[in-house]
């Protein structure tokens, strides 16, 4: 299989900020992303869990983007403006993708 170098960016962010983040990513030219639900976690602001919650205030989501390496900086800058004042983490990994025409 022919693979192509790419970057896998994973952003864990508050659920209230999800749309703001994905809109910023789209503005930065990111062509695709996948949102995974997060059921709980822990960090400096303590532990939390989604069980029994009604509101969106305390939940988080994970947004995963695969991009060509050349686009990484634009993506990170867009993500950073949204994540900056908020809880959450941003993690980048080297990856290989099939079907590079999609990125």
């Amino acid at each position, binding site marked *: 299989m022919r693979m192509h170098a790419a970057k896998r960016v994973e952003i864990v962010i508050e659920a*209230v900020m999800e749309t703001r983040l994905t809109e910023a990513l789209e503005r930065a030219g990111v062509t695709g992303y996948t949102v995974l639900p997060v059921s709980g976690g822990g960090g400096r*602001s*303590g532990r939390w869990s989604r*069980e*029994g*919650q009604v509101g*969106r*205030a*305390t939940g988080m989501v994970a947004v995963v983007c695969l991009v060509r390496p050349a686009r990484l900086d634009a993506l990170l800058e867009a993500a950073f403006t949204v994540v900056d004042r908020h809880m959450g983490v941003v993690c980048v990994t080297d990856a290989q993708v099939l079907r590079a025409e999609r990125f």
Partner: protein
Amino acid sequence: MGDMVALAGQTLLSPMILFFVLGLAAALARSDLSFPEAIAKGMSLYLLFAIGFKGGAGVAAHGVDAGLVATLLAGVVLSAALPFLAFALLGLLTRLSATDRAAVAAHYGSISIVTFVTASAVLESRGIPFEGYMVAVAAAMEAPAILSALWLVARVAPPGDRAGAAEPGLWREILLNGSIVLLVGAFAIGWTTGADGLAEIDAFITAPFKGVLCLFLLDMGLVAGRGLRAARGVLAPGVLAFGLAMPLLGAGAGLATGLALGLSAGGAALLMVLCASASYIAVPAAMRVALPEANPALYLTLALGVTFPFNLTLGIPLYIGIAGALAAGG
């Protein structure tokens, strides 16, 4: 007085409150009893749907009282004004930052719809009537407090903490948040379709209502208890004192307004409940966007872990008792 104690006793021993206490106790004892998030959200959608529709059908049945507009306006003013009181009280009792105080104040100006729903269920069980439009008042009181809090922040908080208030889309999110849209929409549909509409869906929204509320309050008890356990650290004595005193001050303001407006005893009690309760769904979400620097553990623990249990167990019977003693027809 003896009546009030008896009423309080009756209320405390209603299944709704007992299930809340069961949830609280189970969470504090670290039981793994829990509700899936989807079920909790589903129950809250049901409760908003039912209470909104019944309120609207009530207005259709009894006609629009001159009081509706006056009470709506009064609710908006109370929601906008109470945050200033809360902000000042927090200044007296605690050493919190201005941003944290403003964020907490927004919650207490706004309302807890679950507390409202429980209080109206208690009134129904006791056979005390109330104005159907109180549900619209509840909806109207959700947002103004947020505006006041953001104004406070713009005046007193460090510049870095202010950016969020201008966040694009924030106001659409607040005014069209899911709970308000469902509550107001169901109210409008209940009003429009009136007795015919009610007859069609009565069996779904009336008979099972209190049972669903029991299950929902069980879950709220679990969530409140777990929140309390996780965030004991934020509850300094001054903060705790605020969480108990503020509902009483709010209820006082609600009572005065209710009496001035000539509301029925049930309506006055509900206005007290609205003023005494603190939001823990809509406002926290807005604060995470607009004031991310404020500490969510603080405002969630206060609203959900302190004031909500206080209102459910002691507050509601107290407010109903006082309103019954003082209001018209009481």
